[in-house]
């Protein structure tokens, strides 16, 4: 075990070192290019410029306000979209005729590029957080809906048969068998749904917004502050990674039995 643990640690260190060398070489070449004029820093920025902007921006209250605004919209759209999707999924499984009736409308809405709805959402909900949540919900809803239906339909028939022979009530069947049985598939949908919510909210903020990281990104881009754009892109990537880590943490606790 000790040997295995040691090998694992050495392997992890080697991988980290490889990544550090790779990133260091790329950033070094980039900085060298920007300084020598091989790369135009007004279009590509420079690593030191990005780091400088990031450090300065970290002390800027506007960044934290925009971050809070964006996260509020992301989590609101995730919870609203997921709750609506799970409820609709349950209704579809309970009444298959309802699903058959809604199927063409769901399919048509699902293939529609949702970003194209932003003008309508702005008309309906204004430039504030409402239109951002609406776009986030429209993206989250469909992905969580499909996994809810798949999750419930995928519940082990042996479990259902056994529970039926015991004379379980509908409530027992749902809470003791269907729901826990569907959670693994449902969770994969929720994980994607949260990422889609981030994508939708930031996308809507870039198009038109009063606040938010997406709006800041659009502003920096329009003022040719390329280092600022890169800095915010890294911030968004970091937020995405942290969201995935959060979901992994919840999954490990919720699905420890897998």
């Amino acid at each position: 075990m000790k040997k295995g643990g040691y090998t694992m640690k050495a392997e992890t260190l080697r991988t980290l070192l490889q990544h550090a060398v790779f990133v260091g070489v790329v950033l070094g070449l980039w900085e060298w290019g920007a300084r020598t004029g091989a790369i135009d820093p007004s279009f590509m920025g420079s690593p030191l410029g990005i780091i400088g902007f990031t450090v300065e921006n970290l002390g800027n209250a506007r960044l934290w306000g925009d971050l809070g605004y964006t996260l509020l919209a992301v989590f609101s759209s995730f919870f609203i979209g997921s709750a609506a999707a799970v409820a609709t999924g349950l209704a579809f499984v309970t009444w298959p005729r309802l699903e058959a009736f809604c199927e063409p409308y769901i399919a048509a809405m699902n293939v529609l590029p949702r970003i194209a709805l932003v003008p309508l959402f702005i008309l309906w909900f204004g430039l504030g957080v409402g239109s951002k949540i609406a776009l986030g919900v429209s993206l989250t809803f469909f992905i969580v809906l499909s996994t809810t239906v798949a999750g419930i339909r995928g519940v082990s028939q042996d479990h259902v048969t056994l529970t039926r022979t015991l004379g379980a009530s509908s409530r027992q069947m749902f809470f003791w068998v269907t729901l826990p049985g569907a959670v693994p598939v449902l969770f994969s949908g929720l994980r994607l749904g949260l990422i889609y919510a981030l994508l939708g909210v930031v996308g809507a903020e870039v198009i038109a917004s009063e606040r938010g990281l997406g709006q800041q990104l659009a502003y920096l881009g329009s003022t040719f502050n390329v280092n600022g754009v890169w800095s915010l892109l890294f911030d968004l990537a970091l937020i995405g990674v942290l969201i995935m880590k959060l979901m992994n943490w919840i999954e490990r606790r919720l699905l420890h039995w897998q």
Partner: protein
Amino acid sequence: MIEARQIDLSFDGVHLVLQGVDLHVRTGEFVALAGPSGCGKTTLLNLCAGLVPLPVGQQLQVAGQPPALGSHSVAYMLARDSLFPWLSALDNAAFGLKVRGMAVQEARERAAAMLKRVGLGGFEHKLPKALSHGMRQRVALARTFAMPSPLLLMDEPFGALDAQTKLQLQDLLLQLCQEGERTVLFVTHDLSEAVALADRVVVMSSRPGRIVADVAVPLPRPRSIRALQTSEDFHHTYTQVWKHLEEGWVHHEG
């Protein structure tokens, strides 16, 4: 305990799955239902459990009542262990009792005692993923026997196990049945299992499933699977059941 008279069953209204099935199982009897794959053994068992609706006009009584899903007189055991992976061995064993309304504490105490009885004392808090196939099937046995139902319907419960584990669990089932007054209808396609466990072996023919023989097993109880291997009566009954099974095939092919 089970009274079936001239049961005919068809799912599509054209092809018969069961034809003129008469089955009588007395209280305390262990009856094995044997026959080729697809002959309707499980369908007959599912009729008794209420999983397959009984066609109008057909006469079937289970514990003095028409078959009904959820009857407390019946405990059903499937071919696979069907343990819930998110529940511990203890909660899996207590599942049937809890569904049927027993207080949680009482159900867990009863389940813990049954887990100990099937040789899984100390494994109460293990999840199914941490158990071997044989251990999982022991938990399923504990779940079935924890319920005080007088009639057990078992659908090839050891069919998916390796030979050695199967023999161990057959022995365990014999002991569990000997300890309480249970009536068992046991579906299997394994003739030696049928003869070793049952008081009678009912042989069915290929589809449409008909009962072609009802063979009494003249082996005394208590039994031990190992001792049966050298029993002449065991081998004689096995040959007899095999002959009837062959006749069922010949009749079907003819």
